[in-house]
């Protein structure tokens, strides 16, 4: 396990001795590892001499930090006001159905997709909107969902 985290040393070194580093550092570590496991956070705590509780505290506070392994593609369904009044719930149901998500899980069993809700993507004029990785799809109807997902099944 230790070995796995050695590759983080260069990232951690670039933050040593600077102020206000915890959030950007965790963001970069997450980009490298895909998510922040408990072991990973403990490793950072030791290496950086930051209390593990402080790291857990920050990682659990912000929605961007992921504490579980994620699918290859991240599907964000916008739940902003404009999307809400334009049937975002219907879009979400269509996604859950098309992805065949296991109960109470947000990642597909083949680890291809992780479904998340996001407060607002700021593309309100295109409501309802979803974002897959960094591509935005707007003016959706539930029927359009399966075909969009198929583009990412590779």
């Amino acid at each position, binding site marked *: 396990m230790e070995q796995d985290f050695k590759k983080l040393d260069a990232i951690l070194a670039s933050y040593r001795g600077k*102020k206000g580093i915890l959030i950007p550092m965790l*963001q970069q570590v997450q980009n490298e590892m895909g998510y922040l496991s408990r072991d990973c956070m403990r490793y950072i705590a030791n290496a950086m001499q930051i209390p593990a509780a402080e790291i857990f505290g*920050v990682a659990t*506070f912000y929605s*961007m930090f992921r504490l579980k392994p994620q699918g290859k593609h991240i599907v964000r369904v916008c739940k902003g*006001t404009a999307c809400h009044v334009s049937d975002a719930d219907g879009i979400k149901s269509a996604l859950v159905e098309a992805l065949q998500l296991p109960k109470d899980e947000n990642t597909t069993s083949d680890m291809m997709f992780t479904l998340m809700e996001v407060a*607002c993507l700021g593309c309100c004029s295109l409501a309802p909107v979803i974002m897959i990785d960094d591509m*935005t799809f707007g003016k959706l109807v539930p029927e359009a969902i399966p075909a969009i997902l198929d583009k990412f099944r590779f």
Partner: protein
Amino acid sequence: MSEITVKVGLASCGVAAGAMDVFNKLTEYLAANKLPVTLMQTACIGMCFEEPIVEFSGSPLGQMHVGKADPESIVKVMEDYIAGIAPQSNVILAEKLGGRHNELLANQQRIVLRNCGVIDPKSLADYEASGGYQALKKALSMDKEQIIEQIKASGLRGRGGAGFSTGLKWSFAAKAVSDKKYVVCNADEGDPGAFMDRSALEGDPHNVIEGMIIGAYAMGADEGYIYCRAEYPMAIEHLKIAIDAAEAKGYLGKNILGTSFSFDLHIKEGAGAFVCGEETALMQSIEGKRGMPTIRPPFPAESGLWGKPTNINNVETWANIAWIISNGAEAFHAFGTEKSPGTKVFALAGKIAGSGLIEVPMGIPIRDIIYKVGGGMKTEKPFKAVQMGGPSGGCIPAQLLDTIVDYDSITATGAIMGSGGMVVMDTGTCMVDVAKFFLNFTQNESCGKCTFCRIGTKRMLEILTRITEGKGEMADIETLQELSENIIKGSLCGLGQTAPNPVLTTLRYFKDEYIAHIVDKKCPAGVCTALLKYSINPDKCIGCTACARKCPVSCIAGSVKQVHEIDQSKCIKCGACLKACKFDAVIKA
């Protein structure tokens, strides 16, 4: 020059609508064919509902914007334009040709967005050519007090929503004595339904940066942060490009423009927490901690980031500064009302025809925003309410449409000016559901520090959920009001103090809808699933079985050519039958 200029709007909304394909098609075509055309990119002109938008200029036809451009036909439009042939369809804005939406833009007044959708946001030279950084040069030749007096005299009020005098706020930070001071730009635009700051940063990042440099100079700060939501990758990219370019040109960094004033600017990406829009929480977050608000006083102007005096302003506030310095406080007063001078940027969304970004003079009636600037309602369903101020705001009903837009008039309705989100709702929107939606949001985003905000919002959400499920009681209304009062009193920061607003305003203006849910067990707008009943009109049903085949719980009986019937005890109210029926025989009530 007879050169033709073609500009494609490549802001987030344009790209999401397919503008990149249009841009790539034009790039390809121009590489293969020699034409007297300069292809450029710009950001958002605000008419998001017409994206992708392409602007043409330089031919005798004059300037024109074409909306809903698609890669298939855009080359033909360009060639026609060069040849002086006006396109047949979808000219949305044009000097000479008469665009369909000329009037919508004519009713606006652009200060903050003056360059958005006009210049290339990645080009410092473009910004300079439109008068950029002249205000900084002017400011550096002024006394610091003079600058602050100028901002005070302009009457500019904080555009983040609270409306505090910007000049006064600056004077507090300027008076603080310290070896180190910070200025911060709050770009943590978290209100659902709001995208003003995103567009301003994507479309004209230098304007915000110039405002910050002037502010830092006036207040004696040498370091600044822009705290931007990570959900806005393009805004962050454009800011990075702009900061690098400004540093290279000597507008940022050591000894700015040969003076003794130095200023460094950094970008901090948010990590997803709505409460970080609150200034004390935002500073905690910049310091790398959990973004939980702290008690005030001390105010940031005395003790902010790392205990040093700090001034925090919203993106739109900063974006007004350079214009005010260049044009003077008096010119600013030419727009708006006495107590709320200037303009306000709004993000129009929801059931409005012209959704997008607008900038209007303060003092304009909400009715004019919706019907003269926003193009009216999207569908035939009539206007019901407009939601202003996001989760901290409220719903303004039809009878108050003539309310004018200024801080004090909006506050009197129970809503707030807020940062500029305006979500228009028609009669198909259930107001109890809207209140529940916002409560769900604030309840999720409460940081948990104050008990009333943490638990009170949860109880309110439970009550609202119960009401939308037809399990409410009349006493619930009183409980909601009581909880609201206590949450407002018992919360440290703006999130909790304003969280009950969506409930209070809907109770004030749409109480009958609450009563319909509680007493009649009906949702008048037909939104709350648990209160709906699907049935089949025997006069219209031809017995095609389309609905029965779609029903996920097989609760529709009836064979071919027989009138179908829904078993109410099994129906899960998913609405699949309604969508499946081609004969309007399924009734939702």
